[in-house]
């Protein structure tokens, strides 16, 4: 259980400014690494760079990725280089789960197509069960527009895992869901973690972290400002300005006091 995936020195340049600067992070089996920060701080972009999905020029200007014994220079990686990575080693649960499912495909077909590429079981029900459906038969023949928010999230999770990934990027997995569903998703991620999945959890909601995360990276304006333990977070021991502001906002909302 010592498998790791580590990113070193990532920098991404947009058309007219640097968007991500010197970001390094590493994921390990059975650990949840949380990437927190305000909107626009570069969290999602970092995640997309891991999968070679930065779709603009000049894009990634430096950074290396080490995983599964392979060493990948992100600046001139080709789609072929990402083939062993995408879906098979690293699954991606994007923000907005419903939109990430093909609207013309049933859940069965979507999960099945992903499973067919991996070395695990080809049966979609297996992956749906793993993603928290007690009775997968219920959703197999449904289309994304027929699913509730929570169901869509779990179906998308099944797609992300079905390729046999041992790591998962979960981008804002609880945003836009109601609290009980949020709790269900969190509980489920905890279960997956216990089964040995390494997770990069992207969020701006610090309330999720104490129970789930093993390490918290605070990101602001494209840089990682500090790395803390969830315990430090709970104790309020954040030093960076961005982290303090995020923590204050979370406390204000949680306690219902505004102004």
């Amino acid at each position, binding site marked *: 259980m010592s498998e790791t995936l580590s990113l070193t020195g990532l920098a991404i340049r947009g058309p007219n400014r640097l968007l991500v600067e010197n970001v390094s992070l590493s994921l390990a089996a059975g650990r949840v690494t949380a990437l927190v920060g305000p909107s626009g701080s570069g969290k999602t972009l970092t995640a997309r760079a891991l999968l070679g*999905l930065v779709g603009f020029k000049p894009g990634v200007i430096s950074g290396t990725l080490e995983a599964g014994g392979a060493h990948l220079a992100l600046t001139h990686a080709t789609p072929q280089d990402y083939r062993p990575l995408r879906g098979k080693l690293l699954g991606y649960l994007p923000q907005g789960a419903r*939109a*990430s499912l*093909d*609207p013309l495909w049933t859940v069965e077909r979507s999960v099945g*197509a992903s499973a067919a590429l991996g070395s695990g079981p080809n049966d979609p029900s297996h992956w749906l069960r793993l993603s928290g459906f007690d009775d997968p038969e219920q959703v197999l023949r449904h289309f994304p527009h027929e699913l509730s928010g929570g169901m869509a999230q779990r179906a998308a999770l099944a797609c992300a895992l079905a390729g046999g990934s041992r790591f998962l990027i979960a981008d804002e997995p609880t945003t836009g869901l109601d609290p009980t569903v949020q709790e269900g998703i969190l509980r489920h991620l905890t279960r997956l973690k216990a089964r040995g999945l390494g997770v990069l959890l992207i969020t701006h909601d610090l309330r999720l972290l104490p129970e789930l995360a093993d390490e918290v990276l605070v990101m602001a304006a494209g840089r990682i400002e500090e790395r803390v333990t969830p315990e430090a977070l709970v104790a309020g021991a954040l030093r960076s300005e961005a982290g303090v502001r995020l923590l204050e906002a979370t406390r204000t909302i949680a306690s219902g006091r505004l102004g």
Partner: protein
Amino acid sequence: MRIQGGSALLRALLARAGVLVAVLLGAVVLVVSLVHLAPGDALDAQGIPEALRPALEARWHLDLPVWQRVAIHLGEVLSGDLGTSLAYRPGTPVAEVILGPARRSAVWLFSALALTLTWGTALALYTAGRASAHRVALRTVSILPVFLLAHLSVNALNEGAFAAMNAGWIDRPDWFALPDQASALRTALAVVLLAVGSGGLTEVHAAMERAVTSARRSPWAEAALARGEPLAPHLWRHLLLALTDLSLHRVAFLIGGLVILEKVLLLHGVGFILWDAALHRDSPVVAGITLLAAAVLAVVRLAGDALRLTLDPRLRSDP
């Protein structure tokens, strides 16, 4: 392909069929009324001798008030009787005049539709997401009206062949000179020009390019890419859906273009007859062809709806 909720599909399809039948009925009423509300009557236009008038008027109910004539004519059309030709081929039943040529025209029409859709899609798959001079060139040529494209290409072919014959390079080709000589070239030319002209190809290309781009940029395509899946199995369904929507628009447009090309290139299809019958003010024939065109359009729309409902589950779910 499995359809979840086959009964929902059937229900939606029946509803669409009902609407199309109602619309087609409306079209029949519109066409028949247009014919009968005209000032004067068909006999005025034909220069019939006065002595023959009463007998002919009685036969075609021209002595009755307009609304009764409309009612009688409607009854006839709805029972499948399109009447007899007045001037184009006097005395011949309209159905007999138009059905044979209509079959030929249908072949040309659907060949052109298939050509414009495949050509436009292939180009779109090639140009989508990249800068390309094809786009401007395509627009420049395709925007020309079909009659002008036909005129220019016929002149170019004839002049070219003429020059080559004079120079002794070739013998007189058997199609020379267009469009007077019946030839496969003339038909092929009509189909190709119909697929390209009057903005046809550039519109198909632009629409398909939009479809390809928006599909590739969609969150589901990106998620599939992130899972290492090939996009093609996803893409074809979305493109087929866009093509279905597009063909519903294009068919009506191509019918108009075909009438023009049949006339310019002297192809004996139903469009050729439509033009001549219209010139002869032979209203039964013109009305018959108009209704035939509306019926073809309705059938194509129904087929398109069936395909759309099959492909897109969002359309068949009850709101």
